[in-house]
């Protein structure tokens, strides 16, 4: 379990998140893809800090998770609000701002 393997896994997860974000047309699933990307970043932090007995990585992971939780709460509230108004959360139907 070398740092290279861990960083490789985090890379694969991040790219899967990016692909999911672009391929999906469903706001909720796109939001989940963002969460996958955040977790990939956390994994890279922990994988690179391993063996050096640094505590900082875990503290940063803690902050990332806190911000992710706040972001999830607000984002899901926005999605609910949008659904109440438009009856749809498909991003190809929400094109009112397009010129």
């Amino acid at each position, binding site marked *: 379990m070398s*740092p290279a393997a861990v960083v490789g896994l985090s890379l694969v997860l991040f790219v899967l998140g*990016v692909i999911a974000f672009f*391929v999906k047309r469903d706001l909720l*699933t796109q939001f989940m893809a963002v969460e996958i990307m955040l977790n990939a970043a956390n994994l890279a932090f*922990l994988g690179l800090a391993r063996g050096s007995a640094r505590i900082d990585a875990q503290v940063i992971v803690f902050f990332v998770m806190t911000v992710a939780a706040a972001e999830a709460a607000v984002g899901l509230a926005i999605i609910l609000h949008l659904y109440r108004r438009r009856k749809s959360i498909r991003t190809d139907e929400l094109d009112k701002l397009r010129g």
Partner: protein
Amino acid sequence: MDSEEAEGLGLVSRRFCFIITPAMAADIVFWILAVVSAGAAAAMIISRNPGHNALFLVLCFSALGGIFGLLDAPFAAAVQILVYAGAIMVLFIFVVMMVDPRTPAPPERRKRAKILGPAIGLVLLFELGTAAWGILANSNRSPASGPGVAPADVGRRLFTEFAYPFEITSVLILAALVGAVVLGKKEEPES
């Protein structure tokens, strides 16, 4: 009985010349969890049902929690399971239940995005891989695993050196809470 079993196992392992060291066991568990988490993320791309997607994400985050534990970070592993696979995903599932239960899921209208998305992903993979390769090749860090970081040390660090960011985080959470409540409120009819 236990000693007998242990002897038997020793005999078997001697006969097959197959000894699993703790490091090897950690490697095997790491690869299993890695395949599970990446597979769950890939299944999320294929599946069309948001409810299933949320459950795949729970699987992915739980496997990542196990990997965090293997990386000598028990605090991060516990928080990952509790906060991510627990709290945040429950929030997601609530919203999946409140939003459309029977997603119409028509065939994707824009085929262009279906090709463009993976193409961008591959370019990004190549780019990030090159960057990571450069960093990992230049740093000759010893892969020896040091002693794990105890959660108490993390807490001590959090309340001394990082106390200021920690307090700002609480303000951020308060703001998010108020914002979520305001956004989630039912609209009053204008009268």
